[in-house]
């Protein structure tokens, strides 16, 4: 081996070379993009989180009376002591926490059972009408999350909470029991009926991808159907169940609509509704303590869940392009199960919508007879004793403004999310194996574990004043866009990565060899090859943003109100029919968006979720 004869460079040269090497490192596109993304994510995720934590430790304007001699901004443990160990902590923190956990676990569990069973029926049995089941299974998810809650009210509400009777009470003339009308049971059921779509999609994808030879090997070894199911199939879909669990749990922890509609009227508070009532009166210090508690609980549950399952590792065992040999014959149960599925789908898709639509034609709430029907809520000119004097929704300028805001918000969010997805996907995939790429990927995951309403809360504390070049955003429409984009970062990163992974790295290298610079390589090679994936992602984000409530409920103002927040305002004002009419409008908008997705080549809800 020849000994390298190195000339010792003078220190000046050495520095020069180091500097050049540094700039060379900096000049590779994935490094530049990673750094930009880091900056963006620090701005959109880390700083707001930091500001929120600081707020809980500092004296706020409304605390001045409670803490004598303090000035605004002083360091204090007042909020934490008050929320965690004072007399009111029981009502303010612990009870809502217990309620949140009850609802999340209950709804997630129920959603797992429903979604898992339906996935199994569709993928693994000879149940008829699979196409319809497949389509209908995604309908509840497309609708706003509190649609079913609102329909529940119409059907089951009773007069004990001071309101008018629901349809059931009206027909039977006997009061609906309280547990069925309001509180945990209705919230759990209505949330599960909304979120089971995750489990359905995840589990059916996993079941489809299991190599059937794995099961056949079990069969040859003499195992019975039930044993194969238990010992082979189930363990293989556990990762999918885990993903569904993480997603559903973190969503239900932070969900606001359902608990607000079905819990608050009977003082059944969850962390999300309690958070809202605190921040609603400007009590940010206490509210943010709740937000942090909420985040910590969601995060630890997710972490424990991931530890237990070891998500990544188990996934590799699936993925063989299996040939589905046999479908489970349902035999005698076929008729029964089919009927059950049809009835079930009627209850989750058709009934709620019919109830909502019917209710919008009722002049007075609680009277379900035909003589009570009217078009007042749709095209009324505005009478003082109906809907606080507002005209029917089709003539109401506020509704048009909100609809315009919804569309605008969804459009901008989807655009920026798709853009971030491209950049994040590129930065993460091209930098695979480097520390920088890992950090970017991990930070991009953070918004995933922050429940929606807490994420919204994070943004209240930020942007109230201008910081450096960043203007004050509070109360602006731009803030809604920023928070929606930030919350979507994990999804955009995931879909971006999976789209990028489909483009072999040689394709870009070949272009580099041919002399193409980074921008040209991106424009001519990478973008054309990944664009269909991003279009799906765009439309998916468009839809989810359209019906998002928890995330923005704390941030909207009358001028930036969107349809989702507007329905909630009407519900809180007691204008049930008006609220339901707005929900119908919202659903129509979302469904047309979904129609666009299905028309677009290769686009689907599944793809948008990164499956």
């Amino acid at each position, binding site marked *: *081996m020849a000994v390298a004869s190195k000339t010792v460079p003078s220190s000046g040269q050495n520095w020069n*070379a180091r500097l*050049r090497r540094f700039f*060379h490192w900096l000049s590779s596109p994935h490094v530049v993009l990673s750094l930009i993304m880091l900056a963006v994510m620090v701005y959109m995720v880390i700083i707001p989180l930091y500001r929120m934590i600081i707020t809980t430790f500092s004296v706020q304007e409304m605390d001045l009376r409670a803490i004598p001699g303090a000035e605004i901004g002083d360091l204090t443990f007042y909020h934490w002591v008050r929320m965690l160990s004072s007399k009111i902590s029981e009502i303010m923190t612990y009870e809502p926490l217990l309620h949140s956990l009850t609802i999340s676990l209950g709804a997630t569990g129920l959603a797992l059972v429903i979604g898992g069973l339906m996935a199994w029926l569709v993928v693994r049995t000879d149940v008829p009408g699979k196409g319809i089941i497949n389509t209908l299974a995604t309908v509840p998810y497309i609708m706003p999350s509190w649609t079913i809650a609102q329909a529940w009210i119409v059907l089951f509400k009773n007069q004990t909470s001071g309101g008018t009777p629901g349809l059931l009470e009206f027909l039977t003339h006997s009061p609906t029991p309280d547990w069925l009308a309001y509180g945990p049971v209705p919230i759990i059921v209505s949330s599960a009926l909304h979120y089971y779509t995750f489990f359905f999609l995840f589990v059916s994808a996993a079941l489809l991808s299991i190599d059937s030879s794995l099961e056949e090997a079990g069969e040859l070894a003499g195992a019975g159907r039930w044993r194969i199911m238990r010992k082979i199939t189930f363990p293989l879909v556990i990762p999918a169940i885990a993903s569904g669990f993480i997603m559903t749990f973190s969503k239900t922890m932070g969900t606001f609509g359902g608990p607000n509609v079905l819990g608050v009227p009977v003082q059944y508070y969850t962390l999300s509704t309690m958070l809202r009532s605190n921040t609603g009166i400007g009590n940010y210090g206490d509210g943010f303590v709740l937000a942090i508690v909420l985040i910590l609980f969601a995060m630890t549950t997710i972490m424990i869940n991931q530890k237990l399952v070891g998500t990544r590792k188990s996934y590799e065992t699936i993925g063989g392009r299996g040939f589905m040999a046999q479908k489970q014959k349902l035999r005698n149960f076929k008729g029964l199960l089919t009927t059950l599925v049809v009835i079930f789908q009627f209850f989750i898709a058709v009934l709620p919508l019919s109830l909502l639509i019917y209710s919008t034609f009722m002049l007075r709430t609680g009277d379900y007879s035909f003589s009570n029907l009217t078009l007042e809520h749709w095209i009324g000119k505005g009478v003082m004793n109906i809907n606080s004097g507002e005209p029917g929704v089709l003539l109401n300028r506020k509704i048009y403004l909100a609809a315009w805001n919804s569309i605008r918000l969804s459009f901008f969010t989807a655009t920026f999310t798709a853009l971030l997805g491209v950049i994040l996907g590129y930065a993460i995939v091209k930098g695979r194996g480097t520390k920088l790429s890992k950090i970017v990927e991990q930070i991009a995951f953070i918004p995933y574990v922050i429940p929606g309403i807490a994420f919204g809360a994070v943004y209240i504390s930020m942007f109230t004043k201008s910081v450096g070049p960043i203007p004050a955003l509070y109360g602006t429409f731009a803030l809604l866009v920023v928070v929606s984009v930030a919350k979507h970062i994990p999804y955009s990163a995931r879909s971006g990565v999976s789209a990028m992974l489909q483009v072999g790295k040689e394709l870009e290298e*070949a272009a*580099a060899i041919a*002399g*193409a610079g980074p921008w040209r390589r991106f424009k001519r090679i990478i973008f054309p090859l990944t664009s269909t994936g991003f279009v799906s992602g765009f439309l998916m984000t468009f839809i989810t943003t359209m019906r998002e409530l928890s995330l923005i409920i704390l941030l909207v103002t009358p001028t930036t109100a969107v349809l989702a927040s507007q329905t909630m305002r009407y519900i809180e004002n007691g204008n049930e029919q008006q609220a339901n009419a707005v929900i119908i409008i919202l659903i129509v908008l979302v469904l047309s968006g979904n129609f666009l997705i299905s028309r677009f080549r290769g686009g689907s809800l599944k793809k948008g979720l990164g499956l």
Partner: protein
Amino acid sequence: MDTPIIIKNLTKKFGDVVAVNNVSVTIEPGSFLTLLGPSGCGKTTLLRCISGLEDPDDGEIIIGDKLVYSRSKGISLPSGQRDLGLVFQNYALWPHMNVYKNITFALEIQKMSKADMDIRVKESLEEVQMAGYEDRYPREMSGGQQQRIALARMLAYRPKVFLMDEPLSNLDARLRMDMRTELKRLHHISDATTVYVTHDQVEAMTMSTKIAVMKLGVIQQLDTPDMVYHYPANLFVADFIGNPKVNLMPGWVSGQNLVDIGKFNIPVKTYNKTGDVVVGLRPEDIIIHNEPTDGAVEFAAYSVLPSGADTTIIARKGDTELTIKEMGVSKIQMDQPIWLSFKEDAINLYDKETEALITA
């Protein structure tokens, strides 16, 4: 064209793994150098360092009169400025562009006029015998056709250096033979300095002007195919090159120009070496006799494997096993006694300790 490639003390690490270890090579202008070795020997990494797709950790690379990489000077030119073309193992044709667009991609960057581009496309397609395929998309062509288009794409912009990363390994045996012929012609006509990576020794032997045999990131021998075959620099190269494999017999120097293998002696030039050695002898350099012959050693034919043009015979004596290649169909029967003599000047002697070839 006269574009040498000079590599000095090049090192590339992936974490703790040293893929290329302090390699220095000078690749002469117009030569066809093959980097040959088992998987994981660093041959592809070395090629990628030359191409600029991989950034080395240390050393220098000069292509023609351009310093394209130097750690100490902090220079690393992007691939596009190194005047080279690369053919990938999986062709890497852009699936969303037709053949014409694939080929003109680089020409557009060079701001060539449309008329000139048309001429170039036509020429380069003719060179790879794919004229008339301009409008096809990659998925509409067979593997062999895609490979030719990948070549045409490289030829079209006339790089001074051709780099090829196992370009034939995705083709079936027959096509591979055809493409070898074409590639060699292409190099002959263009005279571009070529660096070719393969693990297939036949490809290396048939096409190269020079072969660099690599192992664990180090070049074991850099020589003409002839020298690499007949004078392997060490036991690794001797063992890696040649099919059937070389016969390696451990023994010790028992006298002036004599090596004791155990049951018999082999006369061989031992120079001044003493002690443990390994005798290396190619299967075709052993002569089979049907009767006892002067200086020949008696063996038994353990197995006879005819393959048409030649026959491979495995012979045993005690625990010594030798592979012999005889031209034509052999008449030797299994278990028959045979007498073997060795072509003395074809024998290579290796130091058992250092595994290096012993020379004067």
